[in-house]
């Protein structure tokens, strides 16, 4: 027997937010005239406990079995009211909200009459939909008790360690042959007695000796399927090609005839195809770069045939994980050839390259052919950052760490070359972090010369025997020309090159500037829109080491929660297919951003589309795209929406 529909309508004043514009009494009276409405009331603050209790009492005493609240945006209080309805013993999905604040009173403050009419219409539509609402049961699914961390830089290392310390099983994958990321390449840090490579080394030691962590280098994610709580991830591990039985790999490196720019020194030096990334690298083993190797076989001769296998095959495997932390880091901006003279003279280098020279495990000034001591040293700020451009993909952002890093290195160069002249051609000094402003002060006192330039009038670098830098100092209004022994371009940070691949695998959006867009910049800063996927470190935006470690710990704190709970609650408002109508045209399969819909063959041989409710996020794209009305979304069925439109146009 069909139950009789009894609708309760509650019109919220929201203090004066709604009642200041809309004649709430009129809306209440209008609701009373609508079919099936048995209670229509106004409440000053419906979300208050008084308001919620009124609804609960009416459900209990008046036999209300559908509830409509006309108030603010459902984003604000839909959850509040669903909970209240549930508390009263009613299915929480027998609730509908009309947004008469954002959609009426706030946008039509000058037209109270029009706003009131619009509120009536919105209420009429919500009541029409409420009449057709069906109860929806929430469901849960079990969570695989394992965490995947993508990226072995300091953020990935910290995240792995935090999760492992909570007793969870962690798999850490790193695409490079070494762990530690960019931090492992840096020497002195701002206000830290430990150097970058020391911090990386300490973390690496803890991670690789932890019984709960499995570390896989040279490993990339190939595919991600499954759903929140049970992501099935497939990987490929590239071999190192050199077996552990090789006792003297340095001989192999020596005879290797192939030389390529060394990416670990940002191209300052050359390395062999048979190489060890850098001193102190972990794992401390040699590796063959197969993209450069010519398979000449010389290393086989010097190391022994049985210790090297140039035809070793990549290893493919897959595993399930409950949650995933993405810590894929960043890549430094590389100036284009000729940008501030870059590439035209060995004395023009980037800040990333300078960090390698200043680091204990990097090359020296002599190694790259620079005379010692240096007399005139010029830093140019904001190279590849803070672009002033209308292009939507321009790097208009501040890379945040270059000012402090530049000043840190200027002070070090001042110690190395006490009689040198050091100039900083800057646009804004942004030593924003704690203790860094002091560094700036120290630099000023030590005689470093700060010259401010405008973006519209950047320094010009030409080569006249030496690099010659011309700049208009806007503070004194003078054009200055300096012959330099070293020009350092403070290059900014860019999203990592594999961000697009990760984006398509893990279904997350990016901002126009290319960095990952988190689920909410303030409320959910370390989560991605796909549930169970989190971000740590500088894949999100330029970050320093401290911020990367903080975000890694934050992401892990979030990532372990579903695993500790053991079960995840699934999105209840998912799509579903009427298999009698569906002809498997596959439009829904094509449009689903979560790969939640697939075509399946039924027992009778018919093909139909089917939704995996674990993957469905309830976005509704498939339901609106379905050309035969076979695909419907719970609580947003065509019938309900048509009914609302009818009420809109009466």
């Amino acid at each position: 027997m069909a139950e009789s529909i009894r609708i309760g309508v509650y019109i919220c004043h929201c203090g004066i937010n709604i009642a200041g514009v809309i004649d709430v009494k009129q809306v209440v009276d209008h609701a009373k005239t609508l079919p099936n409405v048995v209670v229509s009331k106004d409440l000053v603050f419906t979300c208050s406990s008084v308001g919620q209790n009124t609804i609960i009492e009416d459900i209990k005493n008046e036999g209300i079995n559908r509830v409509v609240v006309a108030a603010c945006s459902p984003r604000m209080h839909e959850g509040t009211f669903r909970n209240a309805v549930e508390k009263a013993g009613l299915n929480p999905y027998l609730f509908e909200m009309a947004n008469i604040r954002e959609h009426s009173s706030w946008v039509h403050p000058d037209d109270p009459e029009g706003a009131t009419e619009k509120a009536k219409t919105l209420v009429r539509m919500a009541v029409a939909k409420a009449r057709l609402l069906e109860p929806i049961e929430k469901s849960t699914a079990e969570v695989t008790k394992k965490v995947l961390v993508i990226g072995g830089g300091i953020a990935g290392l910290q995240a792995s360690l935090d999760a492992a310390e909570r007793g969870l099983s962690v798999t850490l994958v790193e695409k490079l042959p070494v762990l530690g990321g960019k931090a492992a390449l840096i020497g002195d840090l701002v206000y830290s007695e430990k150097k970058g490579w020391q911090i990386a080394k300490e973390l690496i030691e803890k991670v690789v000796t932890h019984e709960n962590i499995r570390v896989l280098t040279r490993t990339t994610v190939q595919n991600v399927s499954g759903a929140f709580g049970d992501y099935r991830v497939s990987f490929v591990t590239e071999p190192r090609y050199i077996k552990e039985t090789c006792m003297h790999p340095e001989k192999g490196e020596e005879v290797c005839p192939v030389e390529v720019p060394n990416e670990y020194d940002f191209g300052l030096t050359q390395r062999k195809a048979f190489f060890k990334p850098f001193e102190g690298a972990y794992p401390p083993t040699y590796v063959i770069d197969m993209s450069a190797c010519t398979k000449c076989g010389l290393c086989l001769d010097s190391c022994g045939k049985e210790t090297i296998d140039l035809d070793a095959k990549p290893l493919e495997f897959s595993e399930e994980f409950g949650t995933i932390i993405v810590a894929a880091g960043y890549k430094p901006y590389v100036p284009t050839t000729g940008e501030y003279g870059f590439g035209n003279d060995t004395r023009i280098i980037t800040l990333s390259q300078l960090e390698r020279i200043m680091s204990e495990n990097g090359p020296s000034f002599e190694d790259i052919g620079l005379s010692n001591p240096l007399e005139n040293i010029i830093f140019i700020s904001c190279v590849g950052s803070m672009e002033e451009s209308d292009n939507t993909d321009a790097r208009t952002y501040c890379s945040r760490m270059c000012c402090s890093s530049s000043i840190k290195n200027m002070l070090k160069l001042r110690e190395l070359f006490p009689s040198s002249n050091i100039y900083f051609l800057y646009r804004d000094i942004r030593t924003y972090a704690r203790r860094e402003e002091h560094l700036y002060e120290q630099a000023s006192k030590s005689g470093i010369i700060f010259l401010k330039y405008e973006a519209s009038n950047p320094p010009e670098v030409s080569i006249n025997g030496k690099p010659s830098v011309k700049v208009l100092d806007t503070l004194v209004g003078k054009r200055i020309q300096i012959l330099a022994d070293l020009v350092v371009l403070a290059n900014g940070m860019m999203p990592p090159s594999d961000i697009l691949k990760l984006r398509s695998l893990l279904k997350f959006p990016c901002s126009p500037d290319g960095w990952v867009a988190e689920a909410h910049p303030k409320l959910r800063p370390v989560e991605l829109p796909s549930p169970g996927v989190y971000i740590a470190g500088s894949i999100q935006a330029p970050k320093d080491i401290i911020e990367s470690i903080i975000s890694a710990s934050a992401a892990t704190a979030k990532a372990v929660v579903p695993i500790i709970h053991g079960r995840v609650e699934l999105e209840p408002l998912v799509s579903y297919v009427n298999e009698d109508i569906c002809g498997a045209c596959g439009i829904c399969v094509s449009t689903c951003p979560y790969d939640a819909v697939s075509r399946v063959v039924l027992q009778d041989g018919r093909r139909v589309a089917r939704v995996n409710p674990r993957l469905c996020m309830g976005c509704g794209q498939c339901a609106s795209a379905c050309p035969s009305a076979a695909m419907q979304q719970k609580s947003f069925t065509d019938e309900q929406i048509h009914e609302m439109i009818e009420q809109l146009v009466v």
Partner: protein
Amino acid sequence: MKEKPKAAFYWCSTCGGCEESVVDLAEKILDVVAAIDIVFWPVALDFKLEDVESLKDKEIAVCFINGAIRTSEDVHVSKLLRQKSQLIVAYGSCSHLGGIPGLANFWNKESIFQKVYKEAPTIQDETPILPQEETEINGLTLTLPKFFNTVRRLDEVIDVDYYIPGCAPNPDLLLEAVQLILSGNLPPKGSILSPNRNMCEDCPLERKEEKIQLQSFFRPFEIIPEPGRCLLEQGIICLGPVTRVGCGALCMKVSMPCRGCYGPTDGVQDMGTKFASALASIVDIDDDQQFMKLIASIPNYSGLVYMFSLPSSYFKRKNMEAVKNE
């Protein structure tokens, strides 16, 4: 001998294809004639309207009406048949959805007459004459039915019990309908007597890719489609996904795209807008300008997706100030 149930066939504004489909029953038509007594069928049998008028109300068991409502005569005869029939079946796309004649709803009476009787290249008359509802000749008055501004579906002027879709309908559907009606085991009123399923199910063409991602559209004459492969996937706009089964996927069997004559499945109110959201979902272009170029590459979207259903769309017709309330 028990009296056979009476049946009637009538055509409103139509091309005659629906009548052909009845004849297409071939020798099976004998089974139909054996079971029912045809009392009115202007295309084939010499009955007059007076014969229908002389019948008692509801004397006809079932009447199949094809064609759209274009003229006052269509309305008049339809109303008469409704009065005399127990069941009315809208037969074919025109009476079901408005059909090809419904495309005239992009114009109105004035512009149609202007085009057909004055501007058509075959008109040689120096002083062309437009059809008149009344003409005086030798003291006698000749009349023609009124020509409406707007084409309507049958169920906009009379109550319709069932629909048989198609342009023209598959004759088997007619046979099944007759058998169903004779059995007395009637489906709910308003039913479309063809399965409520999406055309892709019956289509013999195969999809190669899991996801359709289109960057360009082609008209059927612009490319030679890969045999046996889904046309939509190859960029040829095919209305199969928004169309109901029943025809046996005839067009796709010869590698021509579906044009939607069977109308949509239940629950879809407007083929054109529904297909627009489906089509937009399989276009893989991010750039706005390129997207607009792609849209412009469809010469006549409304004419394409509403080829058989403009009078059934949300908009029913192109709005013209000149169109007066009829």
